[in-house]
């Protein structure tokens, strides 16, 4: 293990980071790997935006109860936006302009997809045929990328809703979270798929599903996966015929929104190699896609204790031990350990600093307790936006 290379310097200029994204954006997308506090971060951004007088809605895909608990929602988060009333006093009684609102909801992938089908179908009969098809249910529930696509769709829906002026969305913790950037990608890839093209023959009236019997490859697939499964797939494509254009146009709208100048991307990470690597990957993709990272938040970094180095603390521990003061030696050892940990973490963060820029990266301290209520969220908001946490 190489010695820490003075990671402290990495953040020497990181004071006064501009997180005004919550004032100027109409959409904030949080991305990052799982387990880094992405949902909590989204909630904190929403809380702070509301404190500043905005009407913010936080969409989470995380079914964990914790956010609901933290927001004081005994019944859990619903798939319709709910006003977080318990937060209102805190939001509007703390020196902000007042009138802020915090709303929250949970993404319901299947219901959102159903809504899209209803919007684009020509008839009730078509809706029924699609929604009742087992292959469709699998797509709505399980196709890789569907969750991201529906998160983008929900974002679009909320953006057009007059009740809100800021939508904060928490992306799924997967490597294809950036499918989000090209919402139609998932479906387009699917519809352009060779199997789809094998099944659909262009005719004068549009596309027409051909019979399975005429295609040896389909017969072969049927032998492997079972003929019922194949029949369901064919029935789905049949039912879907004619809806592709509507779906694509809607998806294009979603992409325009995601790429709009007042949409901001916040990459969230924890100070460990694996999550920083993911964050760097996300940030690089965002830059390559021409979107750019608005800011990065690294959660749960060990706080700073005093101004000295780890080596100085270790030396003080040795000196205290030599002088026979075991208690003092233990205490200095503890400081040395915590400083070493912080240095290692800052070293790990360095590549992310390099890509997003020192003035766009905030390092949040590991708290000495767990964040599970409104006080905890307010405390983080205080760290993040540099105002004293408001007492409850």
């Amino acid at each position, binding site marked *: 293990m190489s010695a820490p290379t003075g990671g402290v310097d990495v953040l020497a200029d990181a004071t006064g980071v501009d997180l005004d994204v919550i004032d100027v954006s109409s959409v904030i997308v949080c991305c990052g790997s799982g387990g880094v506090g992405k949902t909590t971060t989204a909630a904190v951004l929403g809380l702070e935006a509301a404190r500043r007088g905005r009407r913010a809605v936080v969409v989470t895909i995380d079914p964990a109860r914790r956010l609901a608990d933290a927001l004081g929602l005994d019944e859990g988060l619903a798939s319709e936006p709910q006003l977080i009333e318990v937060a209102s006093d805190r939001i509007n009684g703390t020196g902000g302009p007042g009138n802020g609102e915090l709303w929250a909801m949970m993404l319901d992938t299947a219901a959102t997809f159903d809504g899209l089908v209803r919007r684009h179908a020509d008839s009730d009969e078509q809706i029924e045929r699609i929604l009742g098809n087992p292959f469709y249910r699998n797509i709505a529930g399980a196709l890789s990328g569907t969750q991201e696509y529906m998160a983008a769709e929900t974002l679009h829906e909320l953006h057009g809703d007059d009740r809100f002026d800021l939508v904060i969305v928490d992306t799924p913790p997967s490597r294809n979270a950036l499918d989000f950037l090209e919402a139609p990608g998932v479906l387009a890839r699917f519809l352009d798929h060779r199997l789809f093209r094998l099944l659909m023959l262009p005719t004068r009236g549009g596309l027409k599903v051909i019979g399975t019997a005429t295609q040896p490859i389909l017969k072969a697939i049927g032998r492997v996966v079972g003929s019922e499964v194949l029949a369901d797939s064919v029935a789905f494509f049949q039912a879907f015929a004619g809806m592709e254009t509507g779906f694509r146009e809607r998806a294009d709208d979603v992409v325009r929104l995601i790429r709009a100048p007042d949409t901001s991307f916040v990459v969230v990470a924890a100070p*460990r190699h694996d999550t920083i690597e993911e964050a760097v990957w996300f940030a690089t993709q965002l830059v390559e896609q021409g979107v750019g990272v608005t800011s990065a938040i690294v959660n749960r970094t060990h706080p700073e204790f005093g101004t000295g180095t780890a080596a100085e603390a270790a030396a003080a521990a040795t000196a205290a031990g030599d002088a026979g003061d075991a208690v003092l030696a233990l205490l200095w050892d503890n400081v040395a350990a915590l400083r070493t940990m912080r240095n290692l973490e800052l070293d790990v963060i360095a590549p992310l600093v390099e890509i997003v820029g020192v003035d766009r990266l905030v390092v949040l301290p590991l708290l000495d307790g767990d964040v599970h209520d409104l006080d905890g969220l307010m405390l983080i908001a205080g760290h993040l936006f540099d105002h004293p946490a408001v007492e409850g």
Partner: protein
Amino acid sequence: MPPESEFPLQSLTAARVVVVAGKGGVGKTTVTAVIARAASDAGRRVLVVELDGKPALAELLPDLEVLAISAPDALDEYLRDHGFARIAKRLNRTGVIDVVGTAAPGIDDIVVLGKIKQLERSGEYDLIVVDGPAAGHAITFLTSAAGLADAVGSGPVRAQADDVLELLHDPDRCQVVLVTLPETTPVNEVVETAFALEDDVGVQLGPVVVNGVDLGDPLPADDDVRGAVADLDQPSAHALIDAAAFRRSRRSMEAEEIARLAAELPIPKVTLPARLVAGLTAADIEQLAATLRAAP
């Protein structure tokens, strides 16, 4: 105190296939590596299987056999081995595997589990440690066989699903080791996952590994701290007091969560100490493996 597993290595490796599962960030890959290392050091023939295409395990276990299994490759191989070589070729060329996977969800999981079953049956290994999917996906990964057996009436994929179910239901052949951290959300999730796996999959659960527990030297009590720093300059005294308070508070939170886990999930636990690093190396894995092999 939560019940600690008396012989952690034995209980963690009580079945030939050990699937390690847990939410992102809890140290699933670390635990996979530590179990494999400890078992290999104990003289067992170990194969490590990784499913997400990340090279971390090969780096952590430079001298062990690490096999990456991907769903398309596993499906291709399965079809070739079962007289469907021509279909395999065409399936590959047309790229329909993901469509097939959507038509019959879980088919990709089934072929991966089927490959693991085949390795287990080969007799070449005493132990196969699988770095499993993240907790949410762990349940679908392991329920895929039952789901597919319901959806598909016949054919080679159905036969594969039946074989996989047999593997999952035999506690001598397969167990799941869940990994968590001593924190609120990971503990909640591991409890939920454990019950879901028992109810929905009927797979044997091994001990739960509580990873990253601060097992450092006990810190002096608050009064002793203030006495000890009385002669120091103000900033140093503050640093020492705050650091001690911080560490104690984190530890008491950890102890609370470990106690809650013990109360809510009545199965044995194995504790792995936190390492003072931001990313583990092969040397760290060796040291953690040694703690696993030592009697508690």
